[in-house]
């Protein structure tokens, strides 16, 4: 009798743990000696989608700025940095030229102010809950392998940040 109760309890705990979304259950990040790559995520895409979007916060504890030059992943033919802006009611998307500077002692929030990594020519669907391997290429820190988590299609840096907040 007792063991059955125990088993039930263990089962219940495991079930609850499994039900909670993995993306919010654990903080998720990557580090180099200078850079902290915080919760990189992609938006889930509709089946057959050709494009996708990625977001990440990069913090630089070093005394020199670094520059994110590109992102490589097997899931897309290429990744471009773009900014969506709304001007007088018109949504526009423009490339961010020359990479993204990560200021010394500061951070860059890819996802703030309409900025995003645009995944072009997806090689397959990006389903909710997938883990997508990629390499961030920095001017100084070099190639940094990371894993993007896949969040719902409407996820934003803010909604993701709220779940992964470190208190700031």
């Amino acid at each position, binding site marked *: 009798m007792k063991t059955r109760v125990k088993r039930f309890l263990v089962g219940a705990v495991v079930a609850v743990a499994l039900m909670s979304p993995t993306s919010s259950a654990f903080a998720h990040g990557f580090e180099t000696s200078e850079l902290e790559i915080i919760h990189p995520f992609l938006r889930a895409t*509709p089946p057959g989608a050709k494009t996708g979007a990625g977001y990440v916060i990069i913090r630089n504890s070093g005394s020199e700025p670094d520059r994110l030059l590109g992102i490589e992943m097997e899931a897309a033919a290429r990744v471009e940095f773009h900014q969506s802006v709304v001007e007088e009611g018109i949504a526009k*998307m423009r490339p961010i030229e020359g990479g993204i500077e990560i200021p010394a002692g500061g951070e860059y929030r890819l996802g703030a102010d309409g900025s995003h990594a645009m995944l072009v020519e997806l090689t397959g669907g990006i389903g909710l809950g997938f883990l997508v391997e990629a390499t961030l290429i920095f001017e100084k820190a070099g190639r940094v392998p990371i894993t993007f988590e896949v969040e719902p299609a409407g996820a934003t840096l803010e909604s993701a940040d709220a779940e992964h907040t470190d208190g700031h």
Partner: protein
Amino acid sequence: MATKAPLTLRVFQLILWSLVLLAIGYMVVPRFLPTPQTPEFGPGVPLSSPFTLVNQNGESVTEAAFANKAGAWFYGFTNCPDVCPTALTEMAGLLQALGDDAAKLNAVFVTVDPERDTVPVMKAYVEFFDPRIVGLTGELPAIADMAKSRFIYFAKVPQDDGGYTMDHSASIYLTNAKGEFVGTLDAEEPLTTKLAKLKRLIGEAA
């Protein structure tokens, strides 16, 4: 017999008088012509112009399919990774929040990139967000006519990689059951504000 001025002079006079008459004509005639309508966009403006497009099931649909029902209309394109999924996610979230009342609302996504957004692409796209969203595509001139008559701007913008992106009106446009524009849902508004707007809209329509 009066002496005639030399022929060249008479021709010159004739030209001058013609110019004077033309100038007077330009000034006077427009007053008698009906002034072209330059419609101001704002609440009450009808957004129910006729169109023939194709829905995500490949069926031909006209404006009649959306008559007598409040509507939330968004114009975008499926190759848009940032703004459009945000808008459609919002639309889906609002439909969900409305529950059964969602049936009182037309939720419509019109592509401004019909070249790439074919019927199967539209089907996969809208159903990914919410199958209650109607996706409309069609021939480019039909889309362009509809957009123009509904005050929607869009333009193709070539990109360095050889592809292109689309500039397009960003908001979700709300119409009442008479097909008149009543306002927009803007990305910055909290969900509760948007939901209140929709509830008011379908409340009026009922």
